């Protein structure tokens, strides 16, 4: 069977570099799943949950904040600004962030774009944290 390995890097450190069985990433417009033998791809990531399963079937989840994914041969590289294990997300913090984001009033287009991005991030974080 073909192999698949995942490299997860943030500007601060390499979080992850090990073989996995399958990966699910949040792309800019929805989810995408990768199995071994995926054709080469470069894609833009959105905000959401990165889920990976190893050969034994155990799964791990990370909350990631945008970035890029590159599939090349058997290596999937994920570059993201920040990645947090879902187990470390707290519902309370996410809810506060959502409240803050909701309270913001944007005046210009740029502010609006930034504010809606923060809002989306807070919503997704809350949705993920709620699962635990």
């Amino acid at each position: 069977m073909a192999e698949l390995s995942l490299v997860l890097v943030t500007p601060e450190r390499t979080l992850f570099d090990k073989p996995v069985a399958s990966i699910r990433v949040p792309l800019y417009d929805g989810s995408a799943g990768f199995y071994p033998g995926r054709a080469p791809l470069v894609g833009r990531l959105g905000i959401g949950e990165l889920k990976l399963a190893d050969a034994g079937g155990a799964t791990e989840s990370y909350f990631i904040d945008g970035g890029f994914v590159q599939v090349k041969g058997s290596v999937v590289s994920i570059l993201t600004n920040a990645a947090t294990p879902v187990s470390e997300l707290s519902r309370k913090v996410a809810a506060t962030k959502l409240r803050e984001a909701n309270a913001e009033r944007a005046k210009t287009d740029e502010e609006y774009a930034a504010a809606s991005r923060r809002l989306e991030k807070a919503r997704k974080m809350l949705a993920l944290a709620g699962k635990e």
Partner: protein
Amino acid sequence: MANRRLLVKRLKAVRNIRKITRTMELIATSRFKKAMDRATEAAEYTRKISEIVGDLGRANLKFSHPLLERRAEEKRSVLLVLTANRGLCGGYNASVLRQALAHIRGLKEKGIEFQLEVSGKRGIKFLNYQKVPIQKQYTTFEDQPSFAAVDELGARYVDDFIAGRIDRVDVAYTQFVTSSKQFAVVESLLPIASLGGGAETKSEAGVDYEFLPSAQEILAEIVPAAFRAKLFKCFLDAAVSEQIARMVAMKGATENADEMAGSLKQQYNRARQAGITSELAEIIGGAAALG
């Protein structure tokens, strides 16, 4: 006798200083290792970014992005100066500030307006003394700058540059080459001169990538990401270099203190011996006079 007591006092003082400098050297060494590890980990991200840029290059794409364009007329610029919060690190701060001042002089001659942003108490103090107006100052970047904090600056520069509020961004910092070679430079970060990675990827066999959503959109996203990674690297380089500079300076200070303690001890011993000799001479002289 008074001379001898003075020597003992000085010897004690020197030994105390040696203890302090030695401790500072050890602290700097351990911080240097941590900062170095972070810089190595960050290099991985930069490498991946330039790999993707290289991939994009093969997709027959015209590289055009607002951040890559050099303005015909540069009127407003930002100079970011990265210094340390603390001294006692040899010529580290001085050499960065010297570069920064030379750059400021150049900007003034060309009539380019500039905003000065300074990180580190040392730089702020010095430039205030030189009466150069500072627009923004940061003292929160220590030996482990976080990406989130640096990213705030980066995002602001990107926005200002695209909106045309600034025409260039330069950073004065200490570049880290190897652990025995670092030097202060003024580097121009915006407009981005080259994304890097273009030449090295040519040798690889071309891989046909699928681009989601499209190569052009990925480029639009990756150029700012490359800039932020570069800015972050400046902060990391500065942090590593600071620790090295402090390590070297403190090592020198410890060795000096050792030498000084040695020579003071010698002087003290000589003074003591001279005292004993003169006392003996007095006794013998006295005995001879009696006899």
